């Protein structure tokens, strides 16, 4: 048979005689043994649980967002959101997706088990210690968390090292791992400075510098990097300019290095660093726009709409970053609350919504892979879009955006009742997501596998 199968033109089918079905085995065709999905799923579940607990706390105490963020309880909740929700899901997703996107095998699955234990024990202990204002325990549990993150960075760095050559994606993932290690190290130094009462830098500036390493260095970098693989994959498009992708990652790195130093030293050069990062994000936006314009898939699914809406929030986040970095910005209760809005937009809006969007891709894939991959070609199995409700997904999208808008406006004006309304809408969105996640997980417990129906003759189209 010739290439491109010209003989497959205009043929009709006949019922096929079938042999007995062979025992199912996990696929291993490319010589790459697929990683177990159980641990990535555990990370995802730990993340979703942390998010639900965090939102419940905010519903109970909306005043936390109506005051300046340098309070033990808000710092505790921020770490629950950042380490419990975002980091858990990012780690679970990376363990599963980095090997497949880089077409290699994870360096060690055994290390993942140890890291999961250290991560969960570390972040829950840290959140408890922050809430109770106990710097010694923050340091102790932070060290445990750091051990886990060290294992994560080591495992992925060794996995990256197996891939020959460099591309923008490998550069971006490597950069995010570097900034993750840096953010954890900075956090440990901060905890040690509280315990042993030393701090050569202004404490608030040091905390903001640490936060930027984590949010911009790890989460924004990760969003930028995975976009270059996943947006073309899900929209049937291609990366349009490898060079533009490289420069976007490079400028983000340069800008973040500058931002860390200038924030730490409270330097008037902060806007310059912000501008370099915004330059990197502008190149990223340009590339994403080019990828979307070249896409072959007309309509985008709602998981992609969540993700693309999230990255659109980079525009107000960048404007807020530039405004707040301005050296002559007057220090008033309103401008101090704007810092809360900046954090909410970046963490809840940009990172949170992007993660929810990607979870609509990752969670069905993980469950599908566990429940159905060995049955494909042997029986009729569910496709990813059958595993959750799209109308619920749409309702979750709009309630999330409404909640974010109300929350940001209310936080800016320290309006407690408004904050409660905003958090309630976000909670509604998360409840909707939880229902959909339950639908997805039901396929893990009870896979829907049907035998192939007897085939009816039908005309085959041209290939």
């Amino acid at each position: 048979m010739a290439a491109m199968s010209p003989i497959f033109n205009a043929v009709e089918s006949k019922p096929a005689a079938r042999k007995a079905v062979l025992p199912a085995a996990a696929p291993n065709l490319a010589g790459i043994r697929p990683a177990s999905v159980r641990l990535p799923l555990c990370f995802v579940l730990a993340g979703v649980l942390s998010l639900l607990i965090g939102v419940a706390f905010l519903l109970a105490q909306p005043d936390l967002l109506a005051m300046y963020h340098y309070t033990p309880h808000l710092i505790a909740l921020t770490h629950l959101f950042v380490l419990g929700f975002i980091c858990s899901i990012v780690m679970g997703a990376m363990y599963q997706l980095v090997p497949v996107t880089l077409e290699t095998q994870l360096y060690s699955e055994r290390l993942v088990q140890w890291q999961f234990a250290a991560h969960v024990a570390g972040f829950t202990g840290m959140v408890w210690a922050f809430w109770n204002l106990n710097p010694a325990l923050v340091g102790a549990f932070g060290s445990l968390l750091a051990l886990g993150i060290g294992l994560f960075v080591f495992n992925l760095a060794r996995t990256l090292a197996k891939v020959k050559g460099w591309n923008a994606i490998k550069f971006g993932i490597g950069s995010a791992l570097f900034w993750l290690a840096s953010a954890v190290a900075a956090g440990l130094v901060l905890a040690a400075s509280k315990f042993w009462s030393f701090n050569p830098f202004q404490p608030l500036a040091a905390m903001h510098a640490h936060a930027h390493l984590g949010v911009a260095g790890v989460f924004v970098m990760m969003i930028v990097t995975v976009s270059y693989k996943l947006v073309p994959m899900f929209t049937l498009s291609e990366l349009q300019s490898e060079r533009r992708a490289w420069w976007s990652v490079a400028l983000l790195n340069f800008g973040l290095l500058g931002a860390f130093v200038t924030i730490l030293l409270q330097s008037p050069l902060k806007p310059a660093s912000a501008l370099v990062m915004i330059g990197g994000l502008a190149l990223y936006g340009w590339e994403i726009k080019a990828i979307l314009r070249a896409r072959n898939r007309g309509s985008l699914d709602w998981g992609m709409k969540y993700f693309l809406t999230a990255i659109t929030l980079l525009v107000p986040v960048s404007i807020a970053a530039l405004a707040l970095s301005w050296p002559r910005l007057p220090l008033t209760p309103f401008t101090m609350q704007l810092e809360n809005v900046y954090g909410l937009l970046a963490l809840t809006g940009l990172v949170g919504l992007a993660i929810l969007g990607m979870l609509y891709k990752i969670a069905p894939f993980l469950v599908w892979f566990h429940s159905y991959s060995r049955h494909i070609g042997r029986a009729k199995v569910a496709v990813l879009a059958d595993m959750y409700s799209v109308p619920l997904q749409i309702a979750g999208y709009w309630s999330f955006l409404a909640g974010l808008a109300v929350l940001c406006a209310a936080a800016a004006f320290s309006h407690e009742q408004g904050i409660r309304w905003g958090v309630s809408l976000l909670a509604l969105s998360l409840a909707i997501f939880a229902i959909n996640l339950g639908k997805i997980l039901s396929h893990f417990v009870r896979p829907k596998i049907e035998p192939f129906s007897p085939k009816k003759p039908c005309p085959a189209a041209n290939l």
Partner: protein
Amino acid sequence: MIATPLTDELLLETLRQVIDPELGVNIVDLGLVYSVSSAAGRLRVAMTLTTPGCPMHDSIAEGVKNILLALDGVAGVEVEVVWDPPWHPSMMTEAGRAMTGVRKY
């Protein structure tokens, strides 16, 4: 029992039962199957995927192997995933384009 001959149309219809779970469309209408050759009951399939590094790589390729092995008269199946020529939406059938919402070609 008389074995059904391994005709092209039979192979094509059989492979149509392998669905890309992300796109929800079978691999034939997606244009992923480049060629199938047969010799003494052994089949060799050259196919591709919509993108290199596709997370479904092994599952789909194994699915092709499974479904062809279930046919009478097939003693072995070798599936080779190739990237040359790279997949392009123009390789999809009309039905495939309609199902995925591909707007060009």
